[in-house]
Structure formats: C-alpha cells, structure tokens
C-alpha cells in the first residue's frame, strides 16, 4: 500500500527523469507515451487538491510515530495520513467504532497530534485571513 504522498512524489520523480533524459538525448528520443502523460497529469491535478501536496517524508514519519501509541490498524493510519482529519466527525468516519475503542481524552489527543503536524499550514492560512 502506498500513501497519496508517496504516489505524488513518485510521479514527480518520473517527470523529472524524463526532463533530464530530454536534456541528454534531445526531446525526440524521449517522447513519453501519451497514456502515461494523461494519467500523470490527471493524478497530479487530483493529488494537488489533497493534503498530500503539503506533506513531506519528515512530517509523515513524525505523525506515524506519534500515532503509534493509539490502537489503530495499519490501514487506518494510512487513511489518517491521506485525510488528516481536523474534527471528531471526520476522524469518526475513518475509524470504525471510534467511540468504543478510544476514550474522549484519547480522541482529543489524536486531534491535537494531527493539528500539531499540520499546524504550520493552518497558521499560514490564518495569517492569510482564510
């Protein structure tokens, strides 16, 4: 399983590689297959509108470490990374039976952790008056 961020990073790598090859060998020798071009563009469009665009390996690693003490399944952690829920309702959608598995204190702790990781971005949005 890959997180959205990993896929986005991989596509950007592929694009970069094609660019470098074009410099070395001339543009004609390195024409990309048309279907690849299409799917890469559409996927980048989609992923840029998600939180993946503002993530990097360090923040994801930090998030995973901090979530390790909660009783989440692997796929649940993956969904939390992909969505970065901001409220309890959003978290409740991702995690089955959230209420019975975690206490209220733990839930607010999870939300705090998520807030902390994406905090920098929210601060900048507040600064812009959004």
């Amino acid at each position, binding site marked *: *399983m*890959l*997180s*959205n961020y*990993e*896929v986005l990073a*991989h*596509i950007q790598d*592929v694009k970069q590689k094609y660019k470098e*090859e074009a410099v070395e*060998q001339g543009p004609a*020798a*390195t024409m*990309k*297959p048309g*279907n*690849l071009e*299409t*799917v*890469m563009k*559409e*996927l980048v*469009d*989609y992923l840029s509108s*998600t939180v993946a665009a503002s993530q990097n390996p360090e923040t994801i690693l930090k998030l995973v470490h901090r979530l390790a003490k909660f009783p989440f399944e692997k*796929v649940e952690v993956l*969904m939390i990374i*992909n*969505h970065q829920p901001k*409220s309890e*309702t*959003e978290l*409740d*959608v*991702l995690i*089955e039976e959230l209420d019975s598995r975690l206490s209220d204190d733990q839930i607010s702790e999870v939300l705090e952790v998520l807030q902390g990781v994406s905090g920098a971005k929210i601060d900048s949005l507040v600064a812009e008056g959004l």
Partner: protein
Amino acid sequence: MFILTRLTDLLTIQPTSFTIPTRQALEDQINTRYANKVIHKVGLAICLYDIVKSSDGLIGSGTGNVNINVEFRLVVFRPFKGEVLTGRISNSTHQGLHIRLDFFDEIFIPKDYLFEGSQFDHNEQVWVWRTEDGDELFFDKNETVRFRVEEEEFTDNTPVDPALRDSLADADMKPPYKLIGSCYQSGLGVVAWW
C-alpha cells in the same frame, strides 16, 4: 488508495529502439502497455514503480527484435472496501450520484446508499438531504464529497467472437472497473458541511 503490484511480462524491443538505453526502452514499453489501463481483478494501473529483474535479451529469428522477460512493480489505483475517498459530483440522476476523481470517473453512489431522508429534486436535477432539523442540504454538481467505497466491480471486456456475440450494441459496454460508494454516515457527504 494505491497499491503496488508485481507483474511479469515478455517485452519486445524493436531494432529502431536500439539506440536508447535498454532500461529506458523497457520502462517506456511497460508504461505504454499499462499506464492508465485497467488490469482485470487488479485495478487501474497508473505507472511503472520499479523494475525488479529482467532476463537476458533473446533475438527472435527473422525479425531482429529483442525479447526480454521483465519482472516489475506497478502503481495501481485500487481502494480497499471501506476506504474513505474524496471526489467531485459529476452528474446526478434519480438513481443516484455519479462521482469522479480527476483520473477515474466510474464511481456511483446509488440512492439507497445516500442519507436517510434524501430526495431527488427533478426540477433542479439535484439530490437534497432533508435533515432531522429540517435543514435542506444540496448535493450540487462539482461539489467535493467524501464517500466510502462499498463494492468494486470488474467486467471482463475481452472481445468475443463476432459470430457468437449477440446483437449487444457497443453502447451497452460496461466499464471494466467500477466502484460503488456510500454516503450515509455523519462526516460523509459534501466536505463543506462538516
């Protein structure tokens, strides 16, 4: 949402491609063959992830093509059942909502999987959710919605012998890969509501 899948395939490099490095020629071949295509029971292939191993090239007699067995990994779009995704409403009918992601269009939310109390407004051609408090919330076109994946459907569209095929028109062709979603839990639905 995305998984890695390991595949093996026999690839052919034509003599015209001998000038470019073998690795690059193979990567192009794999991407041409799989990118943006649905693999039956696997999912929608996005692009090559990496090449695991490849055999020595063998030249077939008569053509001059080099044949290479390659083992590689692909990035594949295959959300698991129960996964929550976000997409946009592309179309509403009295049967339900059609959702699209930028790269994948075949997602359908049947009316039975919408919130209790949802009704289709024929004049406006939108679904309206009347909440218990009496509020009216609209599933407008192009609105970003969060939904849960409930089912997946693969259809094998391998061409059949024209003699055996009955008079099914091409219009009846089903998409090779289709997702059925749901939207009946608080937190799901238009993202701006929550």
